[in-house]
């Protein structure tokens, strides 16, 4: 794939864009100011979780666990069982692998409404390598009953997700990257767990993306229209579980090709979740999954890794055109 989107990424980022992680931190501070039950629980991750100001402002509302992710989740579940609104914050790679059994048993099975916050998710850590990548988390956690999985795409979705999560007494996994993310849409300000957010409309193609891949998908859609006159529906599928089957059925009903895009392994993520629904419900749209292939990722920054595997404006455009036989 070409290297165009490295340039596109730079020009596309307004200075006002914040990392979703920063929005998580500022929103949590706002909520904590009026609700003493809001707790941040960290595994030596208050710096990487942008929670230093939170800790300074609310020293009684942050619980440090140390580098012990199993304990992070077990303790968080104990805290949540007493009515605390617990945000357990740790790099997604460790939170969802090292603590997988605690998520399954202590959070989901025991129905302790912990909000698990996986920071620097996907390949956000770039060249730090596969130990620090979380390309398995959707797949692993989708198979855990009683867990909502959310990957917000932009600052708006992030803020909404944190506010909803704080009030929802349900186990939730929230996944954030650390790259500044531009707003997707000024028009669609609807956000609800379990409801995909349509940020562009068109009848020639459907792009379904999640998290930090929604923006390059949207840019690809804009380029496809500008250059080729191809109009694409673009969905930010921020809720991986429960997946918005109604929206999937509606857009698949257009009959046009569907392309999914995600910062995750090709196995078990958004793409396979969509494929499973579509195939079992009689939809025969042309369909393709863009994700990280089954290999240890190439060394590079997040942008370089995205470009390498085609999870970029140019890569998504190329894949879309091929799916459209153009």
């Amino acid at each position, binding site marked *: 794939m070409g290297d165009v989107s490295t340039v596109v990424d730079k020009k596309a980022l307004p200075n006002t864009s914040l990392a979703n992680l920063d929005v998580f931190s500022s929103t949590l501070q706002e909520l904590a100011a009026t609700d003493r039950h809001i707790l941040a629980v960290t595994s030596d991750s208050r710096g990487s979780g942008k929670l230093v100001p939170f800790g300074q402002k609310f020293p*009684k509302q942050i*619980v440090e666990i140390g580098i012990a992710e199993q304990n992070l989740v077990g303790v968080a579940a104990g805290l949540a*069982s007493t009515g605390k609104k617990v945000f357990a914050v740790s790099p997604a790679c460790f939170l969802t692998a090292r603590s997988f059994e605690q998520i399954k048993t202590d959070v989901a099975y025991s129905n302790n409404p912990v909000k698990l916050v996986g920071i620097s998710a996907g390949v956000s850590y770039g060249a730090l390598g596969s130990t620090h990548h979380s390309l398995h988390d959707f797949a692993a956690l989708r198979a855990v009953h009683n867990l909502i999985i959310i990957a917000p795409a932009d600052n708006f979705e992030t803020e909404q997700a944190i506010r909803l999560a704080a009030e929802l007494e349900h186990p939730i996994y929230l996944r954030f990257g650390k790259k500044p993310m531009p707003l997707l849409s000024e028009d669609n300000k609807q956000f609800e767990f379990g409801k995909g957010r349509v940020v562009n409309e068109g009848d020639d193609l459907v792009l379904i993306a999640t998290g930090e891949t929604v923006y390059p998908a949207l840019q690809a859609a804009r380029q496809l229209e500008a250059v080729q006159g191809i109009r694409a529906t673009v969905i930010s599928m921020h809720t991986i579980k429960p997946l918005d089957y109604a929206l999937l059925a509606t857009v698949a009903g257009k009959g046009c090709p569907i392309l999914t895009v995600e910062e995750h392994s090709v196995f078990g993520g958004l793409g396979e979740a969509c494929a499973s629904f579509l195939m079992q419900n009689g939809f025969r749209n042309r369909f393709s999954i863009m994700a990280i292939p089954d290999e240890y990722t190439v060394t590079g920054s997040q942008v370089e890794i995205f470009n390498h595997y085609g999870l970029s404006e140019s890569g998504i455009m190329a894949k879309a055109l091929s799916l459209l036989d153009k």
Partner: protein
Amino acid sequence: MTVNELANKSVQYRRNILKYIMGAKAGHTGGSLSCIDILNVLYNNVLNISPETAKSATRDRYIQSKGHTVEALYVVLADKGFFPESDLETLCQYKSHYIGHPTKKVAGVEQNTGSLGHGLPLSVGTAISAKLDELPFRVFTLMGDGELPEGSNWEAALLASHYKLDNLCAIVDKNTLQISGPTADVCSTDPLDKKFEAFGWAVRQVDGHDFQALTEAFDALPFEPGKPSLIIANTIKGKGISYMENQLKWHHGVPDKEQYEQALAELTIAGKE
């Protein structure tokens, strides 16, 4: 309760453990019999838990880390009025809520457990919450000596002393046997007292079948202000039934009718003593 009353309760509890395990044709017999006297003292003399206070924010919390000996917990909860004892006739049966490990579907159960090494972290989180809100409740967790190699226990043990959780009491039901053999041969955890003391805990050892000693130990909590407390309860796996005591096969052995009748006879004699 007096020591005599507790002794009579334990006879009743042991009888019920065997009855319902036999009915279910499944259960962890040896471990339930080793920990039942501890549960007896906790629920009858220590915890401020009852069906009426089951949702109270200030109730003490009991979290059973060694979830496989759930039969001991169920018979005590039934006796305390959380549900009709006859419910246990469905233990492990198709569609029953009374599954073979603690589940919150059963009234009085605080956390779902079963996978080992989970009770202590859950208890630490619960105890931290009490400290944050300055609530007076205490948190108790029962672990087996066989589950102590789980690393999560030691993560939690470190944090418990870091946060000076003197509202936390862990009890180890040290029956010295696990499914593969003597715990000392599988993965020795001795000297257990020294290990926990090194982790910042205050530790006492008691005979886990001595009602007086157990009651006195619980009455003495916290053993030191500012430290979590550990009670190492030295117990006998299969305690109370001669042919089960210290016999590995009774880890999850199920008595047949004849064995059950013999056990009842032994318990009846014990009850009269």
